[in-house]
């Protein structure tokens, strides 16, 4: 976040990865490892698992640089998506395995503590501001889902709302976030 990559950098690094330049892989790692490792660790709350996800995500990008499409968003957003999806899949797999072992799913996350943690960790004041200015109901739904790795049905149950309401809050929350971010100048 401290140095958002411009589109030109995204395309250059993609070309260099495709050419098989180890130095491009190193740069990519230095740019995004804090994002990947941090996000995976936030969702999974497990260092070792976060390191495996980090390994997986960079291996995927190195093996398939062509699957990044700059027309669909930035490299950062693509890598964030890859990371989040893998982390959530793993969380759900582990939870399912735990349930099968009769261990249950562990203590549910407190929405407010997740929220505090996220806001405390948000280094970019702008994003922090935008997220914190979202209506409370939308914010807690977004954060519980994104960092708690919940499906919208699970989130609805935990928040005591209807699944349709949860879906609606997620869509509306992200729409507000998207429009607030798009009207701010890019850093």
């Amino acid at each position, binding site marked *: 976040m401290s140095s958002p990559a411009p589109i030109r950098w995204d395309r250059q690094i993609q070309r260099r990865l495709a050419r098989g330049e180890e*130095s491009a892989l190193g740069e990519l790692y230095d740019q995004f490892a804090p994002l990947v490792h941090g996000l995976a660790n936030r969702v999974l709350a497990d260092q070792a698992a976060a390191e495996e996800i*980090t*390994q997986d995500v960079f291996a995927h990008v*190195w093996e398939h640089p062509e699957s990044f499409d700059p027309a669909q968003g930035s490299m950062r957003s693509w890598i964030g*998506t890859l990371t989040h999806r893998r982390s959530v899949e793993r969380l759900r797999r582990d939870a399912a395995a735990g349930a099968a072992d009769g261990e249950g799913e562990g203590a549910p996350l407190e929405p407010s503590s997740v929220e505090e943690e996220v806001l405390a960790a948000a280094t970019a004041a702008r994003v922090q501001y935008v997220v914190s200015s979202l209506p409370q109901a939308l914010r807690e739904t977004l954060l519980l889902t994104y960092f708690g790795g919940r499906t919208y049905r699970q989130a609805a149950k935990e928040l005591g709302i209807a699944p349709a309401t949860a879906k609606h809050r*997620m*869509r509306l929350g992200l729409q507000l976030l998207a429009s607030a971010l798009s009207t701010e100048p890019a850093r």
Partner: protein
Amino acid sequence: MSAEAGAETSALEGAVHEELRSLLGAWALDACGTDESVRLEAHLASCASCREEGHQLRDAAGWLSTDEPLDPEPSLRRQVLDGCLGRREPAFRVPAYAEPFVAETARLDALLRDLGELDWLERATLRWHGGSVERRPAEVLCHLTAVDGVLARALGLPDPSEGTDLLERDARLRSAQTGRPPTTVRALWRAQTRAIVETAALAPESMAERFVDYGAFRVPVADSFLDRAFECWIHAEDIAEAVGYPYNPPRGTHIRALIGLAVRLLPVVFAGEPGTGRLVKLIVEGRGEGEWLIPLDDPETPPDTEPTATVAIDGVEFCHLCAGRRDPHRMPVGITGDRTLARALLAAAPLLSRP
């Protein structure tokens, strides 16, 4: 198909479209069930308006996560990169001699990422054997950039400063960057380090032996990379000390490479009593452990010659000694053989440091 049936189909499609559209937020947060995701993604392939909204919301979701204040372990970097390279062979490897430079610049950059506005106003103390200067972190970066620029120039890259005298190059770049925000200086420094590594990786192998002219001395490209890694680490420590952050020494293999460079240069700066055929054995313990033979008088001294003196010392401490950070007369070393010669050699080590 009758007009009525057509209207029914499109009403049905409209309902499906609305149902899937309502899932877009959950989908962007990876919060749909598996079959819902599959259905929605199939729909996105054919529905431009949902696709556009989907991308927008995904992008917004990506903003929810910001970089962690705690960086991953530095050792994870090599592990992840090796894992990647095992799955797909690189066409252009980073040369082994550039690896300490890559690692040290990455570590310094991670430190810089964590500096707050006030940290950039602190002053770091840069020491060398002849004295010390005080510099703000951005000025330290100017210094690194100016000297890295000598290597950049040798590789055919643009020179951020000019001339060969290192102090003049530093002063020139520092005055050119005065008043610029620290992030700009950091970007300039980082872009050049990356360009240097990329160029060396793409160059033919013979590049390692090409000479880099520092004015007062010349070293091959491979040694220049080690010199730059060495200075990057030492000044990163200076910055870390100024802002009160912890900073670890480089990895053992990299320390070993840096010691190797110091050992190659030591005979050049050694100014003890003249002699012939003297050989000092350096035994390094701790991080970077290993053994080196230092021929003081003649580079052709056969390696099986009985050492005139043997010096045992900690690896990180030895590096600090060469960087002008330790008093050669007051550090723990083990000496056997000719003590005077060993002491004279240790006293020469700080001469490798530069302002």
